């Protein structure tokens, strides 16, 4: 039975995580709000001025209706019914119509996506991916590794403080460990191949050359596309077997107040089957992993599963972007723009999840004595379990005599 305090903490944690997710969305979306700009364009005959160009270079969103709407006037053309001219639309008019998606384009195949002959939003995506995502994502991962190395040098390996009993206790059964490793191995493969796809042009081509990188990139693409389904399976498995034990409870507050006991020797705050730190990792994996999976599937089937137009409409309806002063998010997206948002969202969350998982791998391997056995053999040293999951051990030991009594009674 879920206790009221567990539900209270659960709701607050959920709201906290949703807040983080929303802030990520707002980081990568462009506002639809247009900065007020009154420009006299009489000198250019209504065409853009130097001021317009400068504003665009400064990334200021300007009211571009003076260009967007000037796509020719067939009614005003001198000849419209004969000779087959373009009527009142000049070549610049036609190119403007193509750029702003208002040209009457007919395609034999490919649907709406094929009708986008010019897609200006691609430049913004390309620049964000190259100038923000790749460098800051790299800093995040390298910074996480550096912090863990420093932590190891200062704190050292967290040892089992008490005397080892020589007895073991079953922590995770075969199905649980299977789910953990399907998820873990597939995530490492997806992380490495994702990094090759994003950073290879910058880091690997200068080192290996274009030919070798082409082979590597092709293999990475195959692995990334196909291993993703195993990741989704692993994600479903861990939710099924572990979600109930990861509902926050009162003991988590004590665990957090004592820093999980990881900063000081001999400090062991009580914890049930999972402590607060493990719960943060679990729910991060579930929420981030789900969002990464959904956007990944959307990218696997181009233009078939658009996500962001409806997501932005929902966000605008909540009023949250407006409250934080961001204005309404543009909900008019070309099919390509939807995929660009999917790619950025996919990669931004993947970077955060990689940083979290690196910390998880550290504490589960070199960082803590006895921790790996939980997902290795499944059996952990009883003293380790007492120090890190005392409430869980107590609940197991409480059940044990009852089972013995039942056996004796039989």
């Amino acid at each position: 039975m879920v206790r009221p305090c567990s539900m209270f903490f659960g709701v607050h944690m959920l709201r906290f995580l949703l807040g983080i997710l929303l802030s990520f969305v707002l980081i990568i979306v462009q506002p639809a709000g247009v900065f007020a700009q009154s420009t006299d364009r009489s000198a250019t005959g209504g065409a853009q001025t130097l001021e317009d160009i400068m504003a665009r270079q400064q990334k200021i969103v300007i009211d571009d209706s003076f260009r967007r709407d000037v796509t020719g006037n067939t009614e005003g053309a001198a000849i419209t019914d004969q000779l087959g001219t373009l009527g009142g639309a000049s070549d610049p008019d036609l190119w403007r119509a193509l750029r702003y998606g208002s040209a009457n384009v007919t395609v034999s195949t490919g649907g709406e996506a094929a009708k986008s002959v010019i897609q200006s939003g691609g430049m913004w995506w390309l620049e964000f991916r190259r100038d923000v995502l790749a460098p800051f994502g790299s800093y995040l991962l390298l910074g996480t590794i550096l912090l863990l190395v420093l932590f190891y040098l200062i704190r050292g390996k967290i040892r089992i403080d008490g005397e080892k009993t020589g007895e073991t206790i079953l922590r995770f059964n075969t199905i649980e460990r299977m789910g953990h490793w399907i998820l873990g191995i597939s995530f490492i493969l997806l992380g490495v191949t994702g990094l090759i796809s994003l950073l290879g042009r910058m880091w690997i081509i200068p080192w290996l050359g274009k030919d070798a990188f082409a082979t590597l990139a092709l293999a990475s693409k195959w692995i990334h596309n196909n291993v993703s389904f195993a990741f989704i399976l692993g994600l479903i498995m861990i939710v099924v077997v572990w979600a109930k034990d990861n509902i926050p409870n009162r003991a988590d507050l004590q665990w957090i107040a004592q820093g999980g006991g990881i900063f000081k020797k001999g400090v062991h705050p009580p914890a049930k089957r999972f402590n607060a730190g493990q719960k943060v990792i679990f729910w991060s994996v579930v929420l981030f992993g789900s969002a990464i999976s959904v956007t990944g599937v959307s990218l696997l089937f181009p233009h078939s599963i658009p996500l962001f137009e409806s997501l932005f409409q929902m966000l605008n309806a909540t009023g949250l972007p407006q409250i934080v002063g961001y204005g309404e998010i543009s909900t008019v997206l070309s099919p390509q723009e939807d995929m660009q948002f999917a790619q950025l969202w996919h990669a931004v969350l993947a970077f955060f999840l990689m940083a979290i998982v690196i910390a998880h791998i550290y504490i589960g391997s070199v960082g803590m004595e006895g921790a790996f056995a939980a997902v290795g053999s499944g059996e952990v040293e009883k003293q380790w379990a007492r120090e890190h999951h005392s409430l869980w051990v107590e609940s197991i030991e409480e059940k044990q005599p009852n089972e013995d009594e039942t056996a004796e009674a039989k």
Partner: protein
Amino acid sequence: MKVIASAAVLIAVISVVASFSLGKIGKSSAEEYASPSVRLD
């Protein structure tokens, strides 16, 4: 360690099956996109 090896084998099997399935979808998609024409009216 058997569990880790089993998980790795399962991932490989799922990936190969996914590759064939996606390949079929990709093939029909490629046929759909073959020889497109674009007309501006």
